[in-house]
């Protein structure tokens, strides 16, 4: 394999591993596990305000002090806007608690349902109509 091929392969792997963009259109069941609910607490490090889903990246500090990067899928920007969440609503560095469901491949990726801020304010950040579990987070399910 030539150097150029190696660089190209590395770039492809990096792109497919870390970018939430592209191929981001899917139903809940295609990527996330409804049997793997989780709660994550961390500080927001990156917000991808993109269609078809917004993504919130957070840094989670584990009990042993090590840090993990997680990416949380939210609803479409349009649906978030209708609920009063815009791209500037949650500042970088804000500590949030996310209720969600982990990815089927057990990567540090999750589908977010509710976000809770430090002041206790809770916001539904998910999507409606994607096949996500009817867990009570989405008011339109009721």
């Amino acid at each position: 394999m030539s150097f150029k091929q190696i660089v190209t392969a590395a770039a492809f792997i990096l792109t497919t591993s870390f970018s939430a963009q592209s191929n981001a259109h899917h139903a809940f069941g295609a990527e996330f596990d409804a049997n793997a609910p989780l709660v994550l607490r961390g500080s927001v490090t990156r917000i991808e305000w993109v269609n078809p889903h917004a993504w919130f990246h957070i840094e989670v500090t584990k009990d042993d002090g090590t840090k993990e990067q997680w990416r949380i899928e939210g609803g479409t920007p349009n649906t978030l806007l209708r609920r009063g969440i815009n791209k500037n609503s949650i500042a970088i560095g804000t500590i949030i608690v996310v209720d969600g469901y982990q990815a089927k491949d057990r990567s540090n990726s999750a589908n977010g349902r509710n976000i809770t801020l430090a002041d206790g304010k809770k916001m539904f950040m998910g999507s409606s109509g994607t096949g996500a579990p009817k867990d009570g987070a989405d008011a339109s399910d009721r």
Partner: protein
Amino acid sequence: MNHARLLIILLLLTACGQREQAAPAKSIPFKPTGDVKHLMQWVLDPAADHLWDSAGSIITAEGTEDLAPTSDEAWLAVQHSAVVVAEAGNLLLMPGVAKDDGAWQDISLGLIEAGLRAKSAAEAHDAEALFDAGGQLYRVCLSCHAIYIKDDERTEPPVTRSDLEESSN
């Protein structure tokens, strides 16, 4: 001209008109190259992804990155993808591809509309309009999948965190 002659002429004209209308339309030899999944995978998805990736923002501690194209060439490429999205709607309406003449038709027309809206946005180099068109495109996708893709639906109730805690005790 008496009434009988006039009636005969009218009847003959009507008969001729009906024969013209009843003449079978020349069939067009469509030759689909794959099924709807192929159409999604090879035509619609890449074009839709390009539209979605070309609008919006990435916000980090370093600042905000605007994803909108920054050159005429890049905007033209977006316009190209927008036309592909719109034409994918027409492909979905082709005989042999269309699933029905009800919701399928409405959704396909919605896809065409979303694609054309994105095309107009790209022509005008209007990043905000492109972002909105991307949102409209996704709503069309959701509408279609909600009706025609049943595999993604869950049939059993979801497991809750308390269920998991109980089972681990």
